[in-house]
């Protein structure tokens, strides 16, 4: 089996750019990744595009003015897990020798959609009865707080931490620092979640990777993918424990086994902190701490920059924003740059192994439709 390496990464600013399009942003990220890898677009045999909210054929629309040689373009929609799922498929093709060099990219341009919470299908049973994505997480938060005697301040401290990280990230154009008090006093969205505990609803962005089984011409040391695992949600009709992030725990077990490591081997993580409660639940699902101990782990400072295992050094979704198609790829870009020592003011010292985790969507009876976990190392 061939060993694919990430030989180049590219990312746009994440912010509100109504004058741009998702195609233009994807092109910018791809050009950045090609330059970083030291190759031309003619060297790329196939493209894998993650996109959740754009029109049909987003990959081809992005690539047409880049004058590719007509190789395959695969469009992948797995909600917020689209970009990471695209990476998983690309790795499979490289490993079996179908291609030698490919580009994975993801993007979404939420400015085009008007704003507010992501629109959910009104054919869905829950959505017809008023469900919105923050409400699902709010109910998980209510139950978690009930079971573990967690106070709203603990939730707010996730947002404080990730905003502190985000202001060190030059691509995070939308982020502002906020105190615990400001976060708790912001507009209620779905109790106990307030506005500043939800990732911003309108942020545009794109990210891209070059992967190759050939020797790298890149500017930085190439990055190995120790594990790439995608799982789908189970259909749950019984009273399940909503404080357990089941799909993430299941995906993590598979990823750790494949990489031959455990959570204590990680130097950093990028996780899907769409809401403050999410990051707490994922600490536990990913094995960073035992059930019910996420608040203590956060309070210890272990997951802050300078701590034992920083989580979301990029600022995460809460600070950087969440263009869904881009998020999974952007997490990979962040971990690559951390491992390569290129993360500037937010550099995690001695970073050796990083993990990315991104979930995707929700449909009735399935709390998350998808989860993708990647483990990376030099």
């Amino acid at each position, binding site marked *: 089996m061939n060993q694919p390496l990430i030989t180049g990464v590219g990312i746009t600013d994440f912010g509100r750019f109504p004058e741009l399009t998702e195609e233009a942003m994807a092109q910018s990220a791809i050009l950045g990744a090609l330059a970083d890898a030291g190759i031309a677009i003619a060297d790329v045999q196939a493209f894998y595009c993650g996109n959740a909210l754009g029109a049909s054929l987003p990959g081809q629309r992005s690539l047409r003015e880049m004058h590719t040689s007509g190789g395959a373009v695969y469009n992948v929609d797995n909600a917020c897990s689209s970009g990471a799922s695209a990476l998983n498929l690309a790795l499979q093709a490289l490993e079996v020798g179908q291609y030698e060099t490919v580009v994975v990219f993801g993007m979404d341009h939420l400015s085009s959609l008007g704003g507010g919470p992501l629109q959910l299908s009104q054919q869905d049973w829950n959505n017809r009865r008023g469900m919105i994505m923050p409400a699902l997480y*709010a109910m998980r938060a*209510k139950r978690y707080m009930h079971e573990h005697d967690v106070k709203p301040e603990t939730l707010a401290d996730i947002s404080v931490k990730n905003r502190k990280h985000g202001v060190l990230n030059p691509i995070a154009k939308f982020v502002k620092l906020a105190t615990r008090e400001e976060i708790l006093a912001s507009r209620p969205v*779905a109790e106990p979640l307030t506005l500043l505990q939800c990732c911003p609803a309108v942020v545009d962005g794109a990210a891209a990777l070059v992967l190759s089984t050939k020797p790298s011409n890149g500017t930085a040391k190439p990055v190995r993918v120790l594990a790439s695992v995608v799982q789908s949600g189970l259909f749950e009709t019984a009273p*399940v424990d909503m404080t357990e992030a089941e799909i993430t725990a299941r995906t993590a077990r598979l990823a750790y086994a494949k990489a031959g490591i455990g959570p204590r081997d990680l130097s950093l993580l990028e996780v899907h902190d769409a809401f403050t409660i999410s990051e707490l639940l994922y600490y536990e699902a990913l094995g960073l701490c035992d059930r019910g101990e996420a608040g203590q782990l956060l309070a210890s400072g272990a997951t802050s920059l300078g701590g034992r295992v920083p989580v979301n050094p990029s600022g995460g979704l809460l600070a950087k924003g969440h263009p869904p198609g881009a998020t999974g790829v952007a997490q990979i870009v962040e971990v690559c740059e951390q491992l390569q020592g290129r993360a500037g003011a937010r550099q995690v010292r001695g970073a050796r192994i990083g993990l990315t985790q991104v979930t995707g969507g929700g449909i*009735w009876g399935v709390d998350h439709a998808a989860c993708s976990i990647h483990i990376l190392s030099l």
Partner: protein
Amino acid sequence: MATATRNGVILKISKRTEPHFRETSAGMVLVGTRVANQPPQFPPTVFLHGDEQAEEIELGPTGRLYSYTVVHPGKDKAPYGLAMVDFEPDVRAFGRLLFDGPPPAIGGTLRVVPFALPDGAPDYAFKE
């Protein structure tokens, strides 16, 4: 729905149209389904394949509040409650949570009550 046979397998899709709630002498109940060896579920199964049969299961009239939230939709729209409620036999249902004063406590008993969807269609909600 049209029925065809292909390679010995009956290809038939049947659509259930029975309502997902009903009034009983004990009060309003939700109506879930159980198909063959699958676990019971609510909302009920709508489409059945081949010779599948759906057994109706009444849920309620009371259940236990697992969790809830109050959604604040913003300008000019009133907040509303949502709840996850657990019923015997081992089924969780989602729906609107109605309350006048402070919201009910997690673990408390809720009743199934009549409500209407935004388009006016008769539906259910939960209330202490």
